[in-house]
């Protein structure tokens, strides 16, 4: 960031649009399926023909409440729909039905790993706009997406770094997928962010003038755009200029931001209550019913894994990245002594077979959590050793068969002390070079001797016990 006399702090807030995965649109029965031939998922309501009446999809309200519960927001008792007026071909009615004065969810927060809470101002529901394709100066309009339900999650300007911004988006994406209200695919546009950004001299209170970068569709680009915009604003201020409040577009190819049409301010949207849609009242019993249906949230699981099972934070983060993984883990640890072992098997051997993030999210694994549990119990009870467990798991993952299909009775039980001592003696006698190296201070040489013991015990020996015994033999020789 160069050597600047004054250090500038980044201040950022996010407006995040998430498409809800209801079957139908927010105000009519047309499908919400992605894609489709142009203008085939439409009806008179969602193309805004005069005389039609929108009727709110009950599931949209329920999904929004779940979103609110997932971020610890307050569920409003009364909510209303408003019209946001603007003339642009992506909406045929010349207004978008949204919420301004009485949104469904108030407040809430996303907690980051550094302990900071990014507060949310509110979450509201609204309809998505149609898709515009600009070609040869003309605009082609497809209204299939018009009327698809969205929630908009509006954060307070609490974000103070690009890393925090990235984590905020990741956490939001994680928890909204987790509660099953959206697939949050940024590349398909089912999650998009508008990033508000300003800078101020470190240690000062007053916010600087902000700009807004519209429609960011990947976390990488959010980071690039914020980095560029931070530098641009700081350079502008340093050279005596002023930041102008405006709406910006990020150019992926050049990595720069540029000004979009001058933004009509909120006043100019002439918001008013939509007279076509009646008040929404949310009985507390319904909120409690939805609360009782909520899965354990990723943040709570993370805490349970790290506190109760002493799983390292890095591993716990991997286990709680997708609900499918954590549910597999929860089943696989039932009755086992060390959940950490289960975690190691999942993050090590099972993850190795799941190449992409999508694979990890689906978590389609031949071995059931119950089978993994059985294997770990054999290990727990000392009936088999770690390396046998590892090789057995490979076979299980290849075949979908259980542990006992590969481990015979004779494999179990490990080996007793006297047999281990015998094997260790043989290893020491048969490898004078390694023994010599070890005596000369090359501590790693002992690994070769342990390896020899493991090989000759067909993996049944306890490596740690073998190492201790070998060291003792050499010392006493």
């Amino acid at each position, binding site marked *: 960031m160069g050597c600047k006399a004054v250090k500038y702090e980044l201040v950022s807030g996010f407006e995040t649009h998430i498409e809800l995965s209801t079957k139908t649109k927010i105000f009519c029965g047309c499908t919400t399926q992605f894609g489709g031939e142009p203008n085939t998922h439409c009806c008179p309501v969602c193309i805004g023909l005069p005389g039609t009446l929108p*009727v709110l999809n009950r599931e949209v309200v329920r999904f929004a409440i779940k979103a609110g519960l997932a971020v610890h927001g307050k569920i409003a008792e009364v909510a209303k729909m408003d019209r946001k007026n603007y003339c642009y071909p992506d909406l045929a009615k010349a207004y978008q039905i949204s919420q301004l004065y009485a949104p469904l969810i108030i407040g809430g927060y996303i907690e980051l790993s550094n302990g900071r809470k990014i507060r949310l101002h509110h979450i509201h529901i609204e309809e998505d706009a149609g898709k515009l394709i600009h070609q040869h100066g003309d605009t082609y309009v497809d209204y299939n997406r018009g009327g698809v339900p969205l929630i908009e999650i509006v954060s307070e300007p609490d974000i103070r770094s690009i890393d925090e911004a990235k984590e905020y988006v990741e956490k939001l994406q994680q928890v909204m997928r987790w509660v099953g209200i959206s697939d949050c695919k940024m590349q398909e546009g089912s999650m998009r962010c508008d990033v508000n950004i300003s800078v101020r001299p470190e240690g000062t209170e007053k916010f600087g003038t902000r700009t807004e970068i519209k429609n960011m569709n990947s976390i990488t680009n959010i980071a690039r755009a914020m980095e560029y915009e931070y530098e641009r604003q700081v350079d502008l201020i340093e050279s005596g200029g002023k930041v102008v409040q405006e709406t910006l577009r990020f150019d992926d190819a050049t990595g720069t931001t540029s000004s979009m049409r001058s933004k009509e301010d909120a006043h100019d949207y002439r918001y008013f209550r939509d007279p076509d849609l009646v008040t929404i009242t949310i009985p507390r019993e319904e909120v409690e019913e939805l609360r009782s249906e909520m899965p354990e949230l990723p943040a709570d699981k993370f805490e349970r894994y790290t506190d109760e099972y002493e799983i390292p934070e890095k591993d716990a983060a991997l286990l709680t990245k997708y609900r499918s993984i954590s549910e597999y883990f929860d089943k696989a640890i039932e009755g086992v002594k060390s959940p950490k072992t289960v975690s190691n098997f999942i993050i090590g051997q099972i993850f190795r077979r799941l190449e992409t993030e999508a694979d990890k999210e689906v978590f389609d694994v031949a071995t059931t959590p119950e089978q993994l549990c059985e294997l770990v119990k054999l290990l727990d009870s000392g009936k088999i050793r770690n390396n046998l467990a590892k090789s057995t798991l490979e076979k299980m993952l290849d075949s979908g068969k259980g542990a006992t299909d590969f481990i015979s009775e004779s494999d179990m039980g490990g080996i007793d002390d006297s047999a281990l001592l015998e094997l260790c003696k043989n290893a020491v006698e048969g490898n004078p070079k390694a023994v010599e190296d070890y005596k000369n201070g090359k501590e790693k040489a002992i690994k070769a001797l342990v390896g020899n013991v493991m090989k000759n015990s067909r993996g049944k020996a306890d490596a740690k016990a073998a190492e201790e015994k070998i060291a003792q033999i050499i010392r006493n020789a």
Partner: protein
Amino acid sequence: MVTREDVENIALLSKLFVPEEELDGLTKSMQEIIDFADAIAAAPASDGGFDNINNLSNVFREDEVVPSYPSEEILKNAPEQAEDHFLVRNRE
């Protein structure tokens, strides 16, 4: 007070062309409309008033797909169309 500038601004936002000679008349009309609305707003009302004339709340639809219209039907009212899309010409 509604001013000529207000009318010009609203016309701009609504993408309407208003000839110069109509501005004064429209400003007067709009003032009258707003006065009328103010008169309604000033009328005494019971506590909390009412939300809509039928006093309804929670009118919902179940999340069940109904068939959409064929695109030919949807595009029937399009001033212009091309390749199953509504076509908006750039007038500049």
